[in-house]
């Protein structure tokens, strides 16, 4: 049978296209689907196990006693105890750090989205000499990662007297701007030009247009870049590591985890509980926002 001869590679654009009778075609597709479905499920199960296994192990570890973990590291918690989680939640250090992380991530995100949209607006919709030049300056920012600039940045912040959470937020906004502008510029440009013409005919100024029309229309794009900025800030480690030294109450969660780990090096199950607590709210939020994150990442890639 020529139609089922799969030994010979056939491409979609092959000129000769043997057409099997319909019933045959469906039978074949169904058969293929059966086999492939099981393969897909198999691969998916392995992937899910490898992804979730360590995370579940970490969360369960928080319910163990230290002795239970060292004598039987592969088993389930025995005895099952709440005190690791309870102790951490009863202490204000964890809550302070969570609050710090929330403040830093929120203010950073707001700053990046607002300043980024403001900058992207003229770069997308004005015509003036030097526009492309300024845009290129921002895009080079992608080439300057925080890692390269961090030593002099630390000195600069020290000289400017910027410390603590403020010292963290301002450079984070600066480093978040390039990506935001790169994503938002094509987005803003795609809005129809007639909007502006109509608004200007009615005597609205550019600033009025920006506030009253552009910002509402740009909201989907702003949410997308905002979610990316929030994640990046929430997970940030390098800059807090340099800036937020000293009192654990002034730290953000990622730095808090490594500091806690240093303090209670021998209490592994306590560290597991601490890390789990830091992970769960973020994980839930990010998984709810998965669509947005993927949109942002693929948008950034195409942009």
């Amino acid at each position, binding site marked *: 049978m020529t139609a089922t001869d799969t030994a010979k590679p056939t*491409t979609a654009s092959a000129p000769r296209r043997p057409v099997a009778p319909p019933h045959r075609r469906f039978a074949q597709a169904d058969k293929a689907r059966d086999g492939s479905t099981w393969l897909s499920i198999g691969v998916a199960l392995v992937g899910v196990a490898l992804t979730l296994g360590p995370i579940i192990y970490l969360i369960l570890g928080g319910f163990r006693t230290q002795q239970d973990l060292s004598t039987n590291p592969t088993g389930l918690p025995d005895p099952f105890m709440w005190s690791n989680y309870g102790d951490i939640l009863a202490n204000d250090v964890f809550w302070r750090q969570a609050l710090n992380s929330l403040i830093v991530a929120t203010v950073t995100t707001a700053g990046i989205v607002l300043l980024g949209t403001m900058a992207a*607006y003229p770069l997308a919709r004005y015509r*003036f000499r030097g526009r492309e030049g300024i845009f290129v300056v921002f895009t080079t920012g992608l080439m300057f990662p925080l890692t390269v600039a961090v030593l*002099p940045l630390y000195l600069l912040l020290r000289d400017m007297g910027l410390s603590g959470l403020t010292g963290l937020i301002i450079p984070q906004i600066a480093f978040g*701007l390039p990506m935001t502008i790169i994503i938002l510029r094509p987005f803003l440009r795609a809005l129809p030009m007639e909007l502006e013409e109509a608004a200007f005919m009615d005597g609205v100024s550019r600033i009025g247009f920006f506030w009253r029309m552009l910002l509402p229309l740009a909201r989907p794009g702003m949410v997308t870049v905002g979610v990316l900025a929030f994640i990046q800030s929430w997970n940030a*480690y*390098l800059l807090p590591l340099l800036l937020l030294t000293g009192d654990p109450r002034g730290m953000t969660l*990622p*730095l808090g985890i490594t500091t806690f780990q240093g303090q209670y090096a021998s209490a592994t199950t306590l560290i597991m509980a601490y890390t789990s607590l830091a992970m769960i709210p973020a994980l839930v939020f990010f998984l709810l926002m998965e669509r947005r994150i993927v949109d942002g990442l693929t948008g950034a890639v*195409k942009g």
Partner: protein
Amino acid sequence: MTTLETSGKGTVPAAGATAPAAGDALGQPVSKHPRRARLRLIGELALFLGPALALFLTFVVYPVISAARYSLYQWNGVEQFSDATFIGFENYARALFGGTDPATKDAFTTAYTEPFQAAFTHTIAILVLSILIQLPLGLLIALVLNRRFPGRASVRVIMFAPYVLSEVIAGTMWLIIFDPNGVATELMHAIGLNPPAGGWLEDQTWGFWTVFFIITWKYIGLAVILFLAGLSGVPQELQDAAAIDGASWWQTQWRVNIPLIGPTIRIWVFLSLIGSIQLFDMVWVLNQGGTTGQYSTIATYMMQIGFFRSDWGFGSAIAVIMFMLSFAVALFYMLVVLRRDNTDRVKKVKRA
């Protein structure tokens, strides 16, 4: 060209008298006074672009330029920078071949060149292995998950989870799992294999591979999600056509799906290359590159030199080398590889 294209003839002389002409006048507010309109435009530009540009130049561009400047000095970061000694490209020479002074060459080779070369080698190894291992793996997972099966949506979300977890959480988690007396060791014993003699991370050869495994676990989700997004753009008709032609599943993937998501793959490769060069957080959380630096990266080595040994000149030189490396890779990739995608697109538009 006028300095501001929007000024002059583009501006409509009287409000409401004439509709804005096509071309230059597009998107301009109506104004009676061209000169005032121009001043206004400059003011608006300053208002909209000013804050972003000021922050960007102060906190991103200036520090990068400073790094280039510091790299030419012998400086400990404590004394005033004006007291630092200018030594030209000596820091770079020390990183690459022990410096130009024969008297200190041997000592500097041990102190500077060897650890730098180790960090450099690890970084390049991670860069190459990411492409060789994560690309096929990510592609395979994406192709399999691209098919319809029950629970597909949840599986995608779960596979993506490690990517959104912070490096610190993931690193701490794996540090506990790969503890020499921890669960990974127990599992190896359970299946009758011997765990690395020196401990998962501390072992001179296993350390690197353990870290590479952790990195793959953390970042494979991005590859999968990007490839899936690319695959969702491949028209179903093409796959149906291939199936009708009698192509097997593998043939369909290899000859239809993979070529069609080529642009997505090339972009992922680009992100992966740049990310590998700048890898820091994860490795730092995993014992700062290892007690003997057995899996140090350029970035973790830079931090150790800059902050813990207070050799800011040398640390800055390493930062600049790291920047040059990512810049070279980015430039090469943009010019040689990604340009193909862009010219393809232009051709398609022209043909249409």
